[in-house]
């Protein structure tokens, strides 16, 4: 290129080197990959999905799938949204051979043998053959290639807050932002393009030209406004309920919380449907204008404009003024709305051909770029006469009108209705707090657009309580849509949907085959299912389906616009992919002691202390040590919830099966929670700290759910309770074993820990090793024990103090796997492990924990019914003699040939020297002495004896201080 390119986005003149398809190219700073390729005359940038047709930019603004390329390891990257950088290397995708010589392009010749939905009609006879065809077809499907070795790059997220979010910084958005911010509101202005001004930056709004620039100069005030924050190159990809907006800029996802939303998201220019309308060099008028204004690219040498409105006629003027030879404006209409256009065209020696259309196009050369267009007179909607004229051209700019960018408004509840008088869709009925402005609202003249932006902002301000007058709705007399810009051709290839290679007859034939609803048309033909999600196919499809099925276009409608608006990387949603696990304050003490850590819910916990290949030995020796001396376990992962308020006891009464009314201050109570179906869903220990103050534990993995249920019910029942999930605020240990009271005494405590002063199941507060603590005398592992809870920041100090004080007594830490064995010996169940989604208290031997006199608790009715009914199954305790195989948890319990249950817990007990376990079995076998049959891993039956719980310490003496 001899002359230096001048464009709004071109920021320098130092060449930027890059490669495409292995070939070296040079662009300029500010170029996108697509614009740099165009500047080098490289129009062919991709191959289509089905027929592998050559494709080049259509919108040059990221609104179509014609510029999808492979960018190194990244597939399906929009070249017209990719900033050019030094050394960038990209290639085409979805081809066999090369982009220029795609072996699969022959598929296009077979198009007639691939009618819409052809794959439903073939490939399955004889039975089984599909398995082979599928492999072939799968390889042909898909676009780019994913590099499965590639790690995620850095992506992050940030919250933003504002009074009013304005989506789109075109004239409507700019005017809205200024109006709102001038009144005092904080405004977040979100613009998808890298510049503000929208079409004012490149479109000619008047015949003379120049009006747009003057307007934009005025609106640029937003850049310095203290209450407006502008994000450019940022895409608002959805409207979620309550104005929750995901905005992607660079590698960041902004999560915006707005109080009001102004959607000034513009309109999508629409193409014309004619034979070969997809050739490289056939673009939307706006794309040609962008090439000139933004990148300084002369889009062609010999241009033809196919017009459906005055906007496209003005594009012809812009092209001519930029030195492009415009052979003709072929206008589908009989005349322009603005008569001054005829004069302006003739001044530039541009032929004006009204009432005609381009009927077909021909491509040539290695890129298949357009070289000729055949024009014909329009005789009736969609029909042409026989007189044809062929015009040479290397650029065809087309516009049949505009479709409001309906995606975000529809996500906000708006409905589309088709207005015959303007031949276009109109949006209405969006959620409260969402205001449409500008061309998305079918307003097209620049002055009216600005007014409409101000009106929308005023409406948003009024909703926020500002004392403002909201102007009447703005009207616009412009009619930019041509009502039937679709011309069937005997050879087909008049593309309605470029993404999916769908021709005019494909849409019509889908309806003829019985898929008449627009949703069925989509699902059968795949129209609108491609990467651009129907931006250009929705409007022509609605028109075609309406005509073919004899309904109105409004009745036909378009398919649902789901998020995201623009394709977004998975990485943006995944963010930094942080999967933090929680550690207790004693975590590094466990590591120092050689703990084998395992995930438990969100937490990391010691399973045991030692090497995994020694697991069984470690667990058994830790268990014996607790039984015979003293052990210490970190139980800080237990859920902990604090409840305060006059209704605290009442809330617990209604949520747990026990009664809390008469519970003494300074005592604890085992509490199980059931759901509406009477199923046990959590358990814990409730402590009464005061008349209106409780502290309750929950299972490690269940606490989030329990807390959520508590807050939900507290609100629903309108009880007066403050509920706080203090799981992370407290560290906790269980000091257990016959010597535990001695260790506690040695560590130093002001609590009376004598047998009488601190009986089993009591709760005390006091100092332990100088730390304020909450103490519970509970016996989950079946020995004398103290659960000690302290503020998390003292957790490590407590651990160290107890270990130090216990040294004289041989204290050893023990892990969660050891605890599981100990509690099994004691016959305590673990909710989640020994229960399933159907377990009722009665089946679990937990009827004792259900208060029969209370008027109500969640699940009470079901629990009562279950108690009356003969239950089919029961959780039983079983034993196998020492030396027998230890059946794995999950193995089945059989009743004849049928499955009657499964093993939930099973282990060899070193204390008892036998294999013990819990299992679901038929309730016929719940009596001690009964036999159950286990199907062993090898399939052999294994007969076990049902016994009474607990396995260990049936006299219940071990929980007391030993003499």
């Amino acid at each position: 290129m001899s002359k230096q390119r001048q464009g709004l986005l071109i920021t320098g003149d130092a060449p930027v080197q890059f490669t495409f398809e292995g070939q070296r190219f040079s662009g300029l700073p500010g170029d996108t990959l697509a614009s740099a390729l165009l500047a080098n005359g490289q129009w062919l940038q991709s191959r289509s999905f089905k027929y592998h047709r050559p494709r080049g930019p259509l919108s040059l603004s990221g609104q179509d799938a014609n510029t999808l390329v492979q960018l190194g390891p990244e597939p399906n990257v929009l070249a017209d949204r990719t900033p050019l950088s030094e050394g960038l290397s990209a290639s085409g995708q979805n081809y066999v051979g090369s982009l220029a010589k795609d072996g699969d392009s022959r598929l296009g010749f077979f198009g007639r043998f691939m009618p819409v939905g052809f794959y439903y009609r073939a490939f399955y006879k004889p039975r089984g053959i599909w398995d082979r065809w599928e492999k072939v077809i799968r390889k042909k499907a898909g676009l780019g290639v994913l590099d499965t070795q590639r790690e995620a790059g850095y992506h992050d997220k940030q919250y933003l807050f504002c009074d009013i979010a304005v989506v789109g910084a075109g004239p409507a958005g700019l005017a809205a932002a200024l109006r709102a911010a001038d009144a005092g509101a904080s405004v977040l202005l979100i613009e998808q393009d890298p510049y503000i001004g929208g079409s004012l930056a490149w479109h000619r709004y008047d015949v003379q030209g120049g009006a747009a620039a003057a307007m934009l100069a005025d609106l640029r005030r937003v850049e310095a406004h203290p209450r407006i924050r502008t994000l450019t190159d940022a895409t608002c990809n959805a409207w979620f309920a309550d104005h929750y907006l995901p905005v992607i800029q660079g590698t960041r996802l902004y999560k915006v919380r707005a109080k009001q939303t102004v959607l000034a998201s513009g309109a999508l220019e629409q193409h014309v449907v004619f034979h070969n309308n997809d050739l490289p060099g056939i673009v939307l008028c706006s794309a040609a204008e962008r090439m000139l204004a933004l990148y300084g690219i002369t889009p062609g040498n010999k241009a033809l404009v196919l017009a459906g409105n005055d906007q496209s006629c003005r594009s012809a003027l812009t092209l001519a003024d930029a030195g492009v030879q415009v052979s003709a404006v072929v206008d589908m209409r009989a005349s322009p709305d603005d008569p001054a256009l005829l004069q302006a065209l003739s001044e530039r020696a541009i032929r004006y051909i009204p009432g005609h259309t381009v009927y077909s196009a021909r491509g040539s050369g290695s890129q298949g770029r357009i070289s000729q267009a055949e024009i014909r007179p329009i005789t009736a909607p969609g029909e042409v006469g026989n007189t044809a004229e062929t015009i040479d051209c290397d650029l065809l700019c087309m516009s049949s009108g505009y479709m409001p960018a309906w995606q975000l408004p529809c996500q906000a509840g708006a409905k589309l209705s088709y207005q015959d008088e303007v031949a276009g869709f109109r949006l209405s009925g969006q959620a409260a707090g969402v205001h449409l402005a500008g061309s998305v609202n079918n307003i097209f003249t620049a002055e009216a657009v600005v007014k409409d932006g101000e009106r929308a902002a005023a409406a948003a301000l009024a909703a926020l309580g500002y004392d403002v007058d909201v102007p009447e709705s703005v009207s616009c007399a412009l009619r930019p849509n041509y009502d039937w810009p679709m011309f069937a051709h005997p050879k087909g290839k008049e593309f309605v949907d470029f993404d999916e290679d769908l021709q005019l007859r494909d849409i019509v034939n889908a309806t003829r085959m019985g898929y008449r609803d627009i949703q069925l048309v989509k699902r059968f033909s795949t129209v609108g299912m491609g990467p651009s999600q129907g931006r250009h196919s929705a409007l022509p499809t609605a028109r075609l389906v309406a005509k073919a099925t004899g309904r109105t276009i409004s009745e036909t409608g378009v398919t649902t616009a789901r998020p995201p608006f623009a394709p977004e990387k998975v990485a943006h949603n995944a963010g930094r992919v942080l999967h933090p696990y929680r550690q207790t304050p004693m975590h590094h003490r466990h590591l120092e002691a050689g703990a084998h850590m395992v995930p438990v819910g969100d937490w990391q916990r010691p399973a045991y202390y030692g090497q995994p290949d020694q697991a069984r030995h470690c667990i058994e020796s830790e268990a014996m040590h607790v039984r015979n001396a003293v052990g210490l376990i970190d139980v800080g992962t237990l859920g902990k919830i604090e409840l305060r308020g006059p209704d605290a006891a009442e809330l617990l009464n209604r949520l747990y099966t026990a009664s809390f009314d008469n519970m003494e201050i300074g005592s604890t109570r085992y509490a199980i929670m059931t759901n509406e179906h009477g199923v046990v869903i959590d358990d814990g220990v409730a402590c009464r700290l005061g008349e209106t103050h409780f502290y309750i534990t929950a299972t490690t993995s269940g606490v989030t759910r329990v807390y959520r249920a508590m807050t939900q019910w507290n609100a629903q029942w309108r009880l007066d309770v403050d509920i706080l999930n203090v799981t992370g605020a407290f560290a906790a240990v269980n000091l257990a074993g016959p010597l535990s009271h001695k260790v506690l005494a040695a560590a130093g405590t002001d609590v009376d820990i004598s047998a009488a002063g601190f009986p089993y199941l009591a709760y005390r507060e006091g100092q332990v090793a100088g730390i304020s603590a909450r103490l519970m005398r509970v016996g989950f592992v079946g020995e004398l024990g103290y659960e000690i809870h302290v503020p998390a920041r003292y957790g490590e100090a407590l651990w160290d103090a107890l270990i130090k004080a216990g040294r004289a007594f041989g204290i050893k830490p023990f892990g969660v796997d050891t605890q599981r064995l100990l509690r099994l010996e004691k016959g305590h169940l673990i909710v989640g492990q020994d229960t399933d989604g159907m377990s009722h208290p009665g089946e679990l031997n937990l009827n004792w924990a259900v208060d029969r006199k209370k008027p109500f608790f969640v699940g009470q009715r079901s629990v009562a019914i279950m108690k009356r009914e003969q239950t089919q199954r029961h959780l039983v305790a079983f034993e196998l003699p020492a030396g027998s195989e230890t059946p794995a948890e999950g193995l089945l319990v059989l009743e004849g040939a049928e499955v009657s249950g499964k093993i939930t817990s099973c282990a060899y007990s070193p204390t008892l020297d036998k294999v013990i376990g819990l299992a679901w079995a038929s309730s016929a076998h719940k009596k001690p002495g009964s036999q159950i049959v286990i199907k062993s891993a090898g399939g052999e039956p294994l007969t076990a004896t049902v016994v009474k719980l607990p396995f260990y310490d049936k006299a219940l003496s071990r929980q007391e201080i030993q003499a």
Partner: protein
Amino acid sequence: MPFSLLKYGLRKDYPFEEDADIPSAHKLRDSYDVVIIGGGGHGVATAYYLAKYHGITNVAILEKGYLGGGNTARNTAVIRSNYLTPEGVRFYGASVELFQGLSNEFDFNIMYSRRGQLTLAHTESAVSAFRQRAEINTHYGGKSALIGPDEIRKLVPCLNMNPAHMPVLAGLWHIDGATARHDAVAWGFAKGATQRGVELHQLTEVTGVDVENGKVTGVQTNRGKVRCGCVVQAVAGHSALMAEKAGFRLPITVYPLQAMVTQPVKPFIDPLVSSPALHCYVQQTGRGEIVLGSGSDPYPLYNTRSTLPLKESLLSNAVALFPFMSQLRMLRQWAGITDITSDYSPIMGLSPVQGYYLDAGWGTWGFKSTPICGKTMAELVAGGGTVPDLIKPFSLERFERFAQINEMGATAASH
């Protein structure tokens, strides 16, 4: 190129009227032997089997929207039979068998694709639960096995074996796991049913159910009143609301279930992979898109809106399992409304209203039961209310007896 495609290319005016899969709208008559409420997969399958095996063709399917537009259109097209209960394994096993023959039966390719399903266990308790499922499956003739990390690596080489600090300890490998073109299943059944004389009425909403002396006599619609001998209700997501019109209540809570899909890329993963612990499942469609699903929304809601938090958590977990998927681009996010029962099993069979048959409570697993459900519901109707053995355990009345079929562990995030 298969020979069958030649005829389409060589016939000038294709498609002819007889090529239509679904006939145009009929006049709604004022009386039918059987009315099926709901033109989703289950409804049309019931009609198909009624016509095919029982010669009952005086049947109207009444659909308030379009054919297969509810959860048939919104599910993620997973077919499997690795359930947790004997009743479930038998039932879904029969469904998988029927699925395998449907393309040839319909003369319409539903693109049934047997890929195998791999469910990942990240904790010892999950390993035990999967062991139980594998044992129950094999006990009743199903095809499931508990496999170790080495075999998992071989099946899915691109899987991160230590995602989100949750090491993959084992997997439940279900070779019968499959997928199919979900819409095509409904279309195939509709094609077969209507060819045999069944009438499909789209845009026909049932607004009331007429019950006299405890027996159903007809329904009211936006197009007028229709009398009938019996009614089959198959309206997933709205079952409780429809039952209320018939005068009884269902033990169903409704939760939205969301899913999403990426742009298509060349094939890189064959099996369906799911991780219940990470609330994530993944499969690649025949078109090359990646379909991702998660657990249900946490609160009951009759709404198909999408939410950002679910998308964030699902995709972050997907990237933990497959780091390279971060390079994929999202195409769509959507939701369906699911009927959840307390035991995560369906409700099939008789209702308190005589002649009013229920097909409900399909939660997040309705698609995979479509053929067997249609077949057994048709038997129920043709037998005048004699409940086939296969669906006896799923009766509504089981809830009164608390004789529930607990499938909770086999449904979460592994559709």
